[in-house]
């Protein structure tokens, strides 16, 4: 990456015969409330990625082995995760966004159907960071997901028939759609990527039955556009009108970014949805003086009509491309002796935040990765205490030694998990720092609006990533497994106290959730940037499924991993010289069992 103006936009195994003993072992211990399915991208509305299945344990996990694989036929980065609804597994591929429905009741899991939508190839050029898709949502007999070219579709789960298709975003304006929708009652909530194209970021509420757009809420801009209504919108640390416009010099909010490309969570009691917004555009902060609210923030809204209820900004006046699109995990924690309805978020900026999810007030902010851009986050003001030497801008030239890099302390593409058993959070991390030379960017519709060169280098310790357990009630790391490469997979944790993750060089691992001890590992053929899930098969046994398929930002950053284009042969990235020795592109679904 240092070589370029970093536009940081950045053998098949046979099915195994069913063994009656392990059926009982794997199925029996599931607590009530666990139906053994995985119907939402993050498993539940709270985005815990916790499966209540307890068949796989630290005692037996060493015998985990692949029981089935399937090539999706697509080579883009396989972020996201499959769904399991009843006896069917649903898989969405990166562009061209094929949807497969596998029959888990038959040997070899043959397809029930596949759905091949017509998705414009134009979207490929304006996908900042590979042609990824972060997953589908099951509701009301429908599989709902986004196509890369700015459409949301609803497909009948039984038949594969397209029920509706709605254009939500405009590719010619630099908007693409990679995020996983959230369905609440009869609303489908969606958003768009485009923080590298100067979009005017938004979320929309569609009607579940018809797909019609019922409301659009901007993430930045005047109160009317943001659906911030007097008396209803109460940000915990600010007051005043039009904060989303007045905190941007020269009306720069109009091209201010704040995209939505992660996931959305929901608290049914408070009736609030929570999602993070991405970076402020362009990356040269001198072109948008002010706090740039509500980019790099978490927003809480009413799903019914989009009304904004509170917002909290993690990185005011983002100088470093610190998107806040990472998962907002809802957990009830005892913080300083008080039972709290908490929201926990691991930010690209290197801090892990514990907030009160009713009000947005900050309770804890502690660095989970090396941080040099700020000293601490002030709990009274909610604001970071900045390190003056690490502020960036075109007039400041090349600012060296900023940690984390703009890949983030963790990528929002790598959602963490939370176990109510261990009370711990599990997350991948990146250990990368950067230099940041901002330059003036010009906004031309449909082309990148960035303005930075930002080479990366390894953070302290030399390892480029890790997988860790975090106590969000105290803001402390509990254990950490160092990994040689940036770790880009999501996390899964189960009631058997086993956690799962994949690595960029293609290992899929199970670890003891209490200690981090590796229980099993298997080389899955391509780097893992997807998120493992767990489900109970029709045979009653517990399984774990994950995609292998190197990509996401790494498709750009490690150009020598690609082999599908003889007309584009690139040198390795200098901070990541040998990743192509260990992995190549792929697009495989793997299922593991005992």
């Amino acid at each position, binding site marked *: 990456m240092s070589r370029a103006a970093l536009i940081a936009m950045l053998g098949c195994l046979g099915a195994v015969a069913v063994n009656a003993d392990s059926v009982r072992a794997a199925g029996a211990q599931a607590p009530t409330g666990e139906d053994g399915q995985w119907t939402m991208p993050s498993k539940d509305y709270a985005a815990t990625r916790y499966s209540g299945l307890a068949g796989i344990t630290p005692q037996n996990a060493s015998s985990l082995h692949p029981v089935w694989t399937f090539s999706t036929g697509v080579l883009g980065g396989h972020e996201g995760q499959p769904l399991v609804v009843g006896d069917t597994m649903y898989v969405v591929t990166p562009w061209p966004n094929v949807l497969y429905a596998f029959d888990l009741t038959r040997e070899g899991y043959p397809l029930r159907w596949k759905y091949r939508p017509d998705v414009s190839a134009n979207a490929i050029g304006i996908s900042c960071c590979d042609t990824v898709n972060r997953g589908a949502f099951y509701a009301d007999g429908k599989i709902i997901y986004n196509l890369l070219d700015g459409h949301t579709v609803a497909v009948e789960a039984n038949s594969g028939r397209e029920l509706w298709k709605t254009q939500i975003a405009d590719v010619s304006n630099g908007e693409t759609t990679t995020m996983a929708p959230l369905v609440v009652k009869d609303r489908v909530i969606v958003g768009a990527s485009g923080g590298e194209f100067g979009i005017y970021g938004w979320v929309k509420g569609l009607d579940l039955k018809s797909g019609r757009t019922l409301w659009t809420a901007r993430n930045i801009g005047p109160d009317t556009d943001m659906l911030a209504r007097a008396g209803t919108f109460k940000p915990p640390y600010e007051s005043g009108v039009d904060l989303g416009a007045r905190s941007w010099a020269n009306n720069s909010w109009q091209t201010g970014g704040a995209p939505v490309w992660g996931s959305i969570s929901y608290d049914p009691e408070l009736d609030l949805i929570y999602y993070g917004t991405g970076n402020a555009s362009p990356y040269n902060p001198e072109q948008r003086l002010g706090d740039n609210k509500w980019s790099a923030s978490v927003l809480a809204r009413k799903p019914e009509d989009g009304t904004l209820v509170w917002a909290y900004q993690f990185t005011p006046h983002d100088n470093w491309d610190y998107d806040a699109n990472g998962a907002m995990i809802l957990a009830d924690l005892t913080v300083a002796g008080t039972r709290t309805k908490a929201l926990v978020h691991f930010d690209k900026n290197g801090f892990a935040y514990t907030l009160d999810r009713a009000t947005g007030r900050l309770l804890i902010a502690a660095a989970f990765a090396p941080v040099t851009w700020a000293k601490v986050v002030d709990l009274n003001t909610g604001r970071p205490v900045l390190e003056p030497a690490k502020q960036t801008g075109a007039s400041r030239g090349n600012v060296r030694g900023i940690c984390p890099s703009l890949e983030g302390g963790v990528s929002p593409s790598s959602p963490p998990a939370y176990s109510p058993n261990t009370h711990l959070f599990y997350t991948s991390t990146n250990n990368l720092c950067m230099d940041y030379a901002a330059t003036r960017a010009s906004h031309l519709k449909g082309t990148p609006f960035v303005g930075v060169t930002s080479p990366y280098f390894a953070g302290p310790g030399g390892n480029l990533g890790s997988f860790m357990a975090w106590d969000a009630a105290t803001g402390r790391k509990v254990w950490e497994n160092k990994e040689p490469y940036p770790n880009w997979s999501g996390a899964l944790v189960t009631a058997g106290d086993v956690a799962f993750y994949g690595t960029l060089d293609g290992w899929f691992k199970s670890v003891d959730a209490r200690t981090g001890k590796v229980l099993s590992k298997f080389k899955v053929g391509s780097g893992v940037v997807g998120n493992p899930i767990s489900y109970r098969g029709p045979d009653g046994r517990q399984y774990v499924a994950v995609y292998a398929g190197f990509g996401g930002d790494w498709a*750009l950053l490690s150009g020598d991993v690609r082999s599908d284009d003889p007309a584009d042969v690139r040198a390795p990235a200098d901070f990541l010289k040998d990743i192509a020795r260990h992995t190549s592109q792929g697009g495989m679904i793997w299922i593991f069992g005992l």
Partner: protein
Amino acid sequence: MAKSGALMFTAMNCDGCHGGDGSGWVGPSLADGRWRYGGADAEVFNSIYYGRPRGMPAFGGTLGAEGVWTLVTYIRSLPVPSDVPTESWEQR
């Protein structure tokens, strides 16, 4: 001409998709001597003027033929490294 092409390459945000010096990013490398749609002057011209299906916008309308030729001249002036198809991790 190559110099004004270099300025135009940045001003039109070509570098945003193709990387600084056209070394490759979301869009393919324009500096490796290898081409999806051909490297002859007219072929490079057509790529820029009319666009290409997998996400290369058409710039003919904005830049006109003259502007596009300026970019072609710049791209054709980029130093092309010798083509080394082998990447090896073995000690030698």
